[in-house]
């Protein structure tokens, strides 16, 4: 063969071989195992950032499934994690509503039976608050014609455009617990600030804690190997709710100990210098469960996909019996780190916090178990957006400082956790939900459980609709006036 032809043939062979190797490598990563970061078509929302590379959490259909099967599986995974939330929100547009034959005409406009119709992932360009990817005036799909034509049904809505339905502070698609008409007319007249502005559940929580710590924290002594009883940690523990509750060192550092009466030698044998988060979650199961549903601990949610079984993937492409186990192990997925680092987030964060790992100790300092630090300082040490930065200059923070200094009533201060971590009574105690989503998006979710304890409904709705006021962390009063309460009351008056 002449030299030029040989050279050309060699180049062709190299190109074809390189192409085949590249496609095969990518194909194996897609179907069998291995890193897939480079294959992403777009970033996920910040909310799903933690599980972005646990692809099978959402893409649950088997490889090569039809698009209909894949779409159904995808939507089912949405419901796996978010259905309880929708139930709690008394979803205004539940799927069951649209199963009725008369709704078929509306489903043709917008297939609301599928979550992905409005919440597409990997599309950062069109993703709005709440992970919404459909046009802001999507309500027009159903409410601009037929018996659902809201502009014909309500005189007050006659001149409105559909892009204002959700953006003006009047409506949400799913959660309207603080926005429905009866609620507006019942609470619409409340003054902007309550005579005694106190967040009730926060007050109960602080009182219970104060009572616990002041009553008995000095009664117990730390039990630990002498080498471990050094530095400020002993004092931190002594002033903590753990000490007050007689939760001694062994409870976290030697959980295998049968009882506190065990010998020091046995304690030393079982001692773990740096216990993992199971030391916390074994007791704080409510907090652990909600933490795993929230933005900080999502990777621990039981529905998050485990690393793929490479043998299963190899079987799917007919190579199960050909590829040796050692190779299968080599190409397997690396498990997701249990906890995310601050550097991985897509929200504005302080650069100095980049290496922080989001586990219990990051916010609570394990020996002090300091809920006050966890309620403000821990948040402010990482979050660096305008709203977070402005908090330290806000009236809410001033009230919080007064409360923790003992100069103001329990519950009168407003910390980050007051608004973003819902409180609830469980088993006779007030616990803080570690799932921020419960009262985060849309922001009107926090009106009933948080805002209304201190503020009137009209003020709360106006304040949350004023984006500049939200960014400044409510320094001042709202410039925005949402008309929904006025219109609801006018309609009520007209009906009577």
């Amino acid at each position, binding site marked *: 063969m002449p030299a030029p*032809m040989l050279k*050309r*043939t060699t180049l*062709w062979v190299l*190109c074809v071989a*390189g*192409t085949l190797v*590249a*496609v095969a490598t*990518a*194909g194996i990563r*897609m*179907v069998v195992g291995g890193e897939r*970061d*480079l*294959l*992403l*078509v*777009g*970033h996920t929302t910040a909310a799903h950032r933690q599980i972005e590379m646990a*692809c099978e959490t959402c*893409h649950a259909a088997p*490889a*090569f499934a039809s*698009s209909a099967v894949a779409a159904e599986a995808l939507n089912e995974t949405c419901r796996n994690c978010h259905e309880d939330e929708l139930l709690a929100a008394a979803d205004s547009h539940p799927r069951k509503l649209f199963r009725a034959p008369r709704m078929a005409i509306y489903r043709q406009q*917008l297939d609301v039976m599928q979550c992905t119709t409005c919440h597409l992932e990997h599309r950062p*360009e*069109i993703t709005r608050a709440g992970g919404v990817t*459909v*046009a*802001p*005036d*999507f309500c*027009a*799909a159903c409410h601009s014609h037929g018996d659902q034509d809201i502009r014909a049904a309500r005189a007050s809505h006659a001149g409105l455009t*559909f*892009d204002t339905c959700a953006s003006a502070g009047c409506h949400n698609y799913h959660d309207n617990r603080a926005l429905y008409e009866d609620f507006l007319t019942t609470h619409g007249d409340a003054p902007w600030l309550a005579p005694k502005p106190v967040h009730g559940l926060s007050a109960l929580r602080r009182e219970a804690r104060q009572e616990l710590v002041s009553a008995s924290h000095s009664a117990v002594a730390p039990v630990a190997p002498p080498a471990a009883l050094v530095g400020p940690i002993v004092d931190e523990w002594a002033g903590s709710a753990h000490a007050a509750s007689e939760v001694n060192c062994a409870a976290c550092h030697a959980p295998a100990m049968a009882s506190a009466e065990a010998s020091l030698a046995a304690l030393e044998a079982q001692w773990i210098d740096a216990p993992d988060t199971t030391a916390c979650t074994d007791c704080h199961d409510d907090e652990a469960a909600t933490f795993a549903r929230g933005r900080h601990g999502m990777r621990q949610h039981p529905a998050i996909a485990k690393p793929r079984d490479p043998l299963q993937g190899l079987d799917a492409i007919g190579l199960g019996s050909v590829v040796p186990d050692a190779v299968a192990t080599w190409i397997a997925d690396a498990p997701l780190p249990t906890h995310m680092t601050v550097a991985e987030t897509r929200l504005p964060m302080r650069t100095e916090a980049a290496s922080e790992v989001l586990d219990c100790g990051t916010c609570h300092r394990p020996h002090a178990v300091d809920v006050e630090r966890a309620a403000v300082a821990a948040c402010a040490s990482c979050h660096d957006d305008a709203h977070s930065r402005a908090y330290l200059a806000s009236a809410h923070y001033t009230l919080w400082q007064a409360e923790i200094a003992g100069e103001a009533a329990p519950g009168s201060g407003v910390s980050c956790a007051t608004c973003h971590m819902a409180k609830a009574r469980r088993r006779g105690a007030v616990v803080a939900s570690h799932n921020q989503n419960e009262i985060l998006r849309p922001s009107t979710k926090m009106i009933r459980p948080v805002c209304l304890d201190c503020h009137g409904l009209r003020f709360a709705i106006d304040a949350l609709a004023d984006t500049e006021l939200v960014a400044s962390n409510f320094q001042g009063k709202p410039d925005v006036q949402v008309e929904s309460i006025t219109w609801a009351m006018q309609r009520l008056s007209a009906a009577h």
Partner: protein
Amino acid sequence: MPTFAEQLVLLTIDEDGAFLPVREDSLVCALAGAALMDLAFAGRIDTDLQALVVMDRTPTGDQALDRVLEKIAAREHPAQTRAWIRELCVEDADGIRDDVLADLVKDGTLGLRRRRMPWQPRTSSYALLDAGSRRDVLRRIEDALRTDEIPDSRDIALISLLDACDVLSALLPAGAIEGRRARIDQLRKLELIGREVAGAVADIERTVILALRARSARYRRLLFRLSGVGGLAAAATLLAPRVPIPERFGPDIFALIWQDDGWQQGSGFVVAGVSIVALISALLLKITPAARLRATRWWRLSHIALGIGGLVALFVHTGFRLGVNVHAALMSCFLAALLLGALVGVSTGGAQGLRKMGIGPRLRAYLLRLHIAALVPLPALLAIHMLVVYLY
């Protein structure tokens, strides 16, 4: 005695059977001019100020020449020599060449061989079986240029035609033509051609030069402009801000093409299809000079048009979105290949200007290699992109 057309075709094939790198425009015009010169020397045609006229309709016995003669004789209204050159370049040059090649194969001067290169379509090439015929023509030309003797009038006409069509430079060693320029000009001015054909040959030669310049300039202008459009479109795709997806609910063409799965799939397959067809046209462009002349130009323009079509399809598919990760790599490859391809076209179209700067052929060769190199990762990236889309 071989005809001008036969001598011309023979001269453009080297002793290994490879075609000399003669510009297609030059060859096409030279073939048309050669055919008319043959007819003029055979006393079949003549020219005057107004038209090229047939003096004798008797066939010459040469298939190619007789077809041209028949065509000229059949024309009701006589046309100018320029018009005939233009028409023969466009419509008959390939046929003349094919006939001449067939004659040369038939009389054993050339041998026809077909072969298949790896991964490429079958190609035809010719082996020079009787190298003596070519050497004889070449020797006559070299003698005419080297000595001060007055050559045969047909040799003068042949040299004039070869020089007019810029074929002579491909036959002589590099730099030789500059050294012999004075002699060439002297030969072209000699009035030794028979009185009866002198006017016709001179007219044909003059017309061939004009036609060649016009054709070449027209084609190169088109090539330059088309490539420029492609290059600007590629640059725009790279630099222009993405076209936003409309924020209004309801029928909208942009929302449809960038959000609807069916449209996305359709436009994606169009991009892939255009890429494949462009690749085929490039392969045809590569193999065409050995078989067809006029087709070369067609395939080159088609290749550029396909590149522009690919950019339009890419816009429909992406709306100037460059993507992320492996998908951004795919887009980068596409755009790099298109941009470099456009630059190859611009450097081909603007070759004369570049040659004056002394960078023409080398720049084009570098750009062409880069254009091809940018295409190498494309099949893998395209396959991965499609796998990702269909598996997830």
